[in-house]
């Protein structure tokens, strides 16, 4: 079944794709903007083939640890195995955040989609950030 042409596997590939290789995602990523008001840094680990994400938000006197969240890894196509992107969601009690992330030119691009679930009246917001491996 397909929803668009991209869903169709190249001839001979169907059923033969091995587990996704997470290595391109793994490690510590630091925001290219050291004065960011968003995410300060991200750590990505491998737990039995699943990316485990740990986010630190910009805060004073120290970054704020969001804790770990299970992520999902994505390749560049249905017949590929190298991870180029991931998603993760955080439910922080007063706010939910969808992290939609991909690698571009050795940088990790992180788009954070945040929705407040408290009664503060703050608007849901999108914030992009770029990260590098130190």
């Amino acid at each position, binding site marked *: 079944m397909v929803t*668009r*042409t*991209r*869903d169709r596997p190249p001839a001979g590939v169907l059923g033969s794709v091995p587990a996704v290789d997470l290595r391109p995602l793994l490690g510590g990523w630091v925001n290219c903007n050291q004065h960011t008001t968003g995410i300060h840094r991200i750590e990505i680990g491998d737990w039995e083939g699943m990316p485990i994400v740990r986010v630190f938000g*910009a805060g004073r006197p120290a970054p704020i640890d969001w804790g770990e969240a299970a992520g999902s890894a994505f390749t560049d196509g249905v017949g590929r195995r190298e991870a180029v992107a991931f998603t993760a969601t955080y439910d922080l009690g007063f706010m939910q955040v969808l992290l939609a992330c991909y690698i571009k030119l050795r940088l990790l691009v992180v*788009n954070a989609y945040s929705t407040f679930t408290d009664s*503060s009246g703050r608007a*849901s917001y999108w914030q992009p950030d770029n990260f590098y491996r130190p």
Partner: protein
Amino acid sequence: MTSLEYVRAEDQLPAGGEAPGGALRLAPLVGTWYATDQEALGIVRLELHDSDGALLVRAFGADVTEPYDWGEVSGTPYGHGVTAVEAMAFSAIYDFGFLITILSAYLIQGMLVLDTFNTFTDSSGRSNYFTREFFHR
């Protein structure tokens, strides 16, 4: 003044700033968006509607004869910050039974940039995949 919870500086209201409350204005997103790549293999068209303040998303996937109509789902709009009153991004989820697709998109310079994150839930062996696509009105 009540202290608001936050997990990064951006979550806080600016000094003297007030939370807007209420729904974001959807006008910047609403309309029909076409893939800039006329030979797109992914999504060829997106229709975004305002239904009494709620965002509705309808996507059409590329195919040889005519586009696949994915049907309509609700979307979540986002502004540019905690004091925003206008939407400039959205997310939505399609569950096709054999595939779950997350759409996440934002406006830049009059273009809509769409990222899709696709997870197969069938036993086809296809890898979960990511796309980045561009749209104009």
